[in-house]
């Protein structure tokens, strides 16, 4: 066999090996966490808040963290959506190629790559400045900042795809820019908007470093925006850090719950995007 063919075959072999290695590594994350988490899971993990002595191995569950995480992610997603939807509309409609547009996109991309710990530190700095303690509200704001660039940039990309003919048809009927944005672009880009929202939600619910200082941790379900709130990622982190095997088991179970939530969100986003594609004119 000639040398060139040999080289080609060698590299194809390497490529397939690498693909298997990377996929195997990533799949092993799923498999290990699901397999070790499942046996540790129980009904009381899902339905109870920690009782006295929980962190020494006594009974209770992580309902506080589950509810806390859902509150945090929902609040953050709501705030981020309110800011990012108009931003994305503006970027794709008014500033498609302008200097402002490219600068805004660039700074959003930078924001996207900012480590989540920085959001936590920044959020906490602002909270100290305002005299607030670690609270649900603080966590929501930090996570909203984290979600903002993800949502805006994904929506922006999707809105760019809306064919200009569809928009022109709307303008030709006498609709203003705002009316077109609301009734045509939002409707046409709906599958992408749904994807963007769920993607950002999934990112927020799994993030630990940004809520570490801002939302704090508590054994109770928060009753107001100014109560501290627990979250699932931190439940994994803190319980894993205790020296008791029973409690570490619960960290595995919490990891299982978190992973299942994130994966089902991801699958749901694909499904919902498909369903909402019904309204799209092709």
């Amino acid at each position, binding site marked *: 066999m000639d040398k060139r063919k040999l080289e080609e075959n060698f590299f194809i072999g390497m490529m397939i090996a690498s693909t298997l290695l990377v996929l195997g590594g990533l799949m092993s994350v799923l498999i290990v966490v699901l397999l070790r988490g499942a046996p540790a899971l129980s009904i009381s993990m899902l339905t109870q808040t920690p009782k006295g002595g929980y962190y020494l191995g006594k009974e209770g569950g992580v309902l506080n963290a589950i509810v806390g995480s859902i509150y945090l992610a929902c609040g953050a997603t709501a705030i981020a959506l309110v800011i990012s939807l108009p*931003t994305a509309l503006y970027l794709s409609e008014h500033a498609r190629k302008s200097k402002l547009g490219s600068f805004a996109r*660039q*700074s959003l991309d930078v*924001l996207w790559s900012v480590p989540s710990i920085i959001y936590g530190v920044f959020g906490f*700095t602002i909270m100290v400045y305002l005299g607030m303690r670690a609270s649900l509200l603080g966590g929501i704001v930090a996570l909203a900042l984290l979600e903002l660039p993800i949502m*805006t940039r994904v929506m922006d990309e999707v809105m760019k795809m809306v064919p200009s003919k569809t928009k022109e048809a709307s303008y030709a009927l006498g609709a203003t820019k705002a009316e077109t944005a609301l009734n045509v672009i939002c409707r046409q880009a709906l599958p992408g908007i749904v994807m963007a929202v769920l993607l950002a939600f999934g990112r927020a619910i799994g993030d630990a470093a940004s809520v*570490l200082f801002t939302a704090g941790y508590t054994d109770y379900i928060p009753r107001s925006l100014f109560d501290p709130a627990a979250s699932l990622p931190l439940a*994994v982190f803190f319980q*894993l850090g205790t020296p008791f095997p029973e409690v570490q088991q619960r960290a595995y179970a919490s990891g299982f719950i*978190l992973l299942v939530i994130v994966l089902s969100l991801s699958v749901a986003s694909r499904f919902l995007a498909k369903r909402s594609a019904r309204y799209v004119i092709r």
Partner: protein
Amino acid sequence: MNTRRLKDLLASKLMFSTVILSMLIVFVMALALLQRSMLILRTQSLGELFLSSSWHPWQGEFGFYPFIVGTLWTTALAMVFSVPPSLLMSIYLSEYAPNKVRGIVKPMIDLLAGIPSVVFGLWGVLLVVPFIRDYVAVAAGVTTTGYAMITGAIVLSIMVSPIIISVSEEVIRTVPREAREASIALGATKWQTVKHVTMRSAFPGVVAAVILGFGRAFGETMAVLMVVGNVPQVPSSLFDPAYPLPALIANNYGEMMSIPLYDSALMLAALFLLLVVLLFSVAAAALLVGVKRRYAIG
């Protein structure tokens, strides 16, 4: 002016202000962190802070050197582990893989990219730590708890591979088909074409993908914090524990409000992280714009 016009005007003003707001966040963040780190910058010089390895916060000595070295080593090592297989995989997906395989693998990579960092950390504690302690370290003839720099690097390398793969795969696919066909027509094999034509054209974009992965690894906090050992010393081997900057911030910030200088030192660490990531992200964007412009259709 009629109400529809008025509504339109209001809507565009509102949209404009949200754009300005979201644009300013990065700058506000940097300024806030700078303002809070002024205290330590006034008392100590940057050289002293970054090059001294004496970390004794209670005596007012804040040498970041061990933490910076820890961050750089773990990140660099993670890139060494993850770049070659990720690049080979993205070449495979974009050039060789049958459509069926790509159709399955690509969504899987997207799905796996969304796994939260604590889950990676948990995986590290459950699988990688014992693996390093019981097999790798034994084979290398050293003893370690398994909570070591190499463990952090392995966890990070798996974590950042999806971003490197998806960005570089996308870039490789933008190389025009004509360029490949010209090379094939000259009698080059497929691999020669990949090596001399496709990858050469896609090179800046692939570099951008690697930079993005580096940036992600550099600032990653929880997954690393859980497996890397967190001992404030300059690591001297792969099996030594390290203490990267984000872990330092996560472990100490918030409780240290009572000591203004300590608080300020941690803010400086956060500012440093932010600036490095900012630099990387701008560099990656510039490279990607270059690639896209070169192959802009029309």
